């Protein structure tokens, strides 16, 4: 089996173990070089994210090389509660190819269908490609494997709904905000309470272009810290009402035991008719905002339960798309495998072409001796003509031999070709 993947992911190891195996971006090239030093490794790539650390290997001597990679991973992790190999998995041959295709498509992700992994795989591939010379990590086979993997990821995302809809509370909030405001660029956002989930939601909104971030919290030090992180300003908790009329998006996440944004106060402090929409995300338990506020004109109020409902519905929809995604992956694994198997015909094809070329050269030389009077331009024409004829004659048998090798019929077909063209196995023409 010429391919293998060795690694761990969110299914086989908890986060405190995964982070020990993870490679920082500055450590990646050294890790790749170290694996390449091992016996039997022809090509290697390393994917290291918060949810997985995996070495992809193209091997000439599988077992020795795999042991070497396991040692490398064990060295990276240091001391662990259990032996390193308890967290690791090894997949070989077409299973390894299938695994890569699943990873890049988001089928193997913690959040089913997540899209960031496509970029992470692309980065891993680029990092491996950056190693050149003696330590070249990616050659023809891995170029093809990773390019096809990235194409599979794109195909799964365009032909299925695996990546559609928000898959987390913060991304659900962003999705809703975008349906209200369109672009979030230049919108003003406020977080009241500055809890972890509020901060995470604010981060997602800022990533989408929300500016003028304001943080109101009873803990001013915490408010200032969060505000600084997003280039915003902090405000005393008691003053948040003064800022509220200026906001487009408000996230509430306090630990208050009762609603802080009451209908009565809202009516007193806010304009009677809001000209533009106000999107309120209440992710506190118990709720910070009285639900009746959501009935007011131009106010869109969503609680954490509403967002969870969206996320659950999207997750179910994504799950329903899995069979389609897996069918695409199966199809593409077959295609890759056919291409890879087709490489078995390459040495024979090369010898066949070399022999044909040698015959052409010899015959051409002989002919030109007899056609001494031909001017240089005509000689060139004759030269090109013979080359074109050769190409055309050899094209069909070459394609058929590759096809036969891809289908596993290479033995009989190549035997027949050797007999017909008089080319010995592994020998000279």
């Amino acid at each position, binding site marked *: 089996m010429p391919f293998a993947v060795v690694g761990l992911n969110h299914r086989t190891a908890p986060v405190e173990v995964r982070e020990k195996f993870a490679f920082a971006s500055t450590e990646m090239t050294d890790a790749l070089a170290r694996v390449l030093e091992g016996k039997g490794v022809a090509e290697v790539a390393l994917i290291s994210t918060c949810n997985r650390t995996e070495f992809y290997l193209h091997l000439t001597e599988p077992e020795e090389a795999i042991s070497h990679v396991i040692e490398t991973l064990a060295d990276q992790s240091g001391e662990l509660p259990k032996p390193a190999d308890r967290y690791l998995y090894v997949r070989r041959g077409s299973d390894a190819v299938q695994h890569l295709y699943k990873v890049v498509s988001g089928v193997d992700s913690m959040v089913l269908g997540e899209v960031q992994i496509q970029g992470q795989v692309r980065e891993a591939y680029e990092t491996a490609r950056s190693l050149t010379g003696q330590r070249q990590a990616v050659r023809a086979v891995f170029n093809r494997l990773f390019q096809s993997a990235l194409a599979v990821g794109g195909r799964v995302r365009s032909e299925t709904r695996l990546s559609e809809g928000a898959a987390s509370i913060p991304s659900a909030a962003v999705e809703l905000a975008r349906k209200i405001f369109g672009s979030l660029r230049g919108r003003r956002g406020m977080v009241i309470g500055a809890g972890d989930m509020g901060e995470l939601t604010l981060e997602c909104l800022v990533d989408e272009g929300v500016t003028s971030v304001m943080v109101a919290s009873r803990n001013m030090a915490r408010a200032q810290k969060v505000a600084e992180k997003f280039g915003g300003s902090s405000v005393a908790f008691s003053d948040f009402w003064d800022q509220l009329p200026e906001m487009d998006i408000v996230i509430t996440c306090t630990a208050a035991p009762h609603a802080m944004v009451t209908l009565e106060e809202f009516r007193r402090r806010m304009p009677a008719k809001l*000209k533009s929409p106000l999107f309120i995300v209440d992710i506190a338990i118990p709720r910070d905002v009285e639900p009746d506020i959501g009935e007011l004109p*131009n106010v869109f109020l969503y609680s954490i339960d509403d967002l969870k409902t969206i996320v659950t519905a999207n997750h179910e929809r994504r799950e329903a798309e899995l069979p389609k995604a897996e069918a695409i992956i199966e199809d593409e694994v077959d295609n890759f495998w056919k291409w890879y198997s087709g490489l078995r015909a390459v040495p024979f094809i090369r010898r066949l072409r070399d022999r044909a070329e040698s015959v052409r050269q010899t015959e051409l030389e002989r002919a030109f001796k007899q056609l001494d009077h031909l001017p240089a331009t005509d000689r060139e024409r004759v030269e090109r003509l013979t080359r074109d004829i050769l190409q055309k004659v050899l094209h069909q048998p070459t394609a058929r031999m590759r096809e036969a090798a891809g289908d596993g019929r290479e033995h009989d077909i190549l035997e027949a070709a050797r007999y017909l063209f008089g080319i010995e196995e592994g020998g000279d023409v």
Partner: protein
Amino acid sequence: MHLLAYAIAAVLYLAASIRYAMRFARARPGATALVAIIIYAGVGFHLAGFALYWVRFGEAPLVGLGPSLASLSLLVALAIAGMGLFSSARPVGLLLAPVVVLFLLLALVIGIHPTGSELEFRGPWLLFHISLAFFGYAGWVVSAAAASMYLLQFRELKHKRLGAVFQFFPPLETLDKLAEWALVIGFSAMTLGLAVGWAWTIRFEQALRISDPKVIWGVLAWLAMLLALWARFSGMRTNRQAALWNVVGFAVVFLAYFVARMLIPETQFFL
């Protein structure tokens, strides 16, 4: 020949309508570039039909119900094509493409040929007057479609129903801006169109025929657009209320047209 071009355009618009509807029914987000390409192809044939008509009959297809519907639908189709450049606005074609199909099929059934209507002033002024009025109506059709979608999307977001409307329709802000721009353009064109018509009627007849049903309807349409604009820019209404005024005003004028045509069938409506 012009009929063939119009018929091909109608088929392409129908294909685009089906494509819009399928994507909406599957609750997919937004419309794809493919549907925009189909619309562009439709507009290409539609323009060819328009030009061939002009070459054959020596006048623009603006007089008579059939030619008028064909030309009005061309303007709406051009608006869809324009929106096709912006992926966020593209889904508005869900409502507009079937309108184009309906207008064009009606035109084909009625017959797209000069009716021989004897209007008082032909030539470039008629062309200006009717073209501007058509721009006005087309703008209003687009504005009303965007406003209707705004109201539906608003309702879905308020009630937290995140189904096909939520997924397929554009964001509220996009719909609001689109309704606003289309109304402003439509109203400006309509105002100019009415002014041109008025000035030249006075010049030819020395008086404006106030009792003419088409004049009454034109003025009613202009007033309804003015009210919709007032609702939008007065600052006294929310965006949702402005959209509501827009849709209700459009519906009233649309109904008035049918009532007028049924009650006074002999009148010379250009539509």
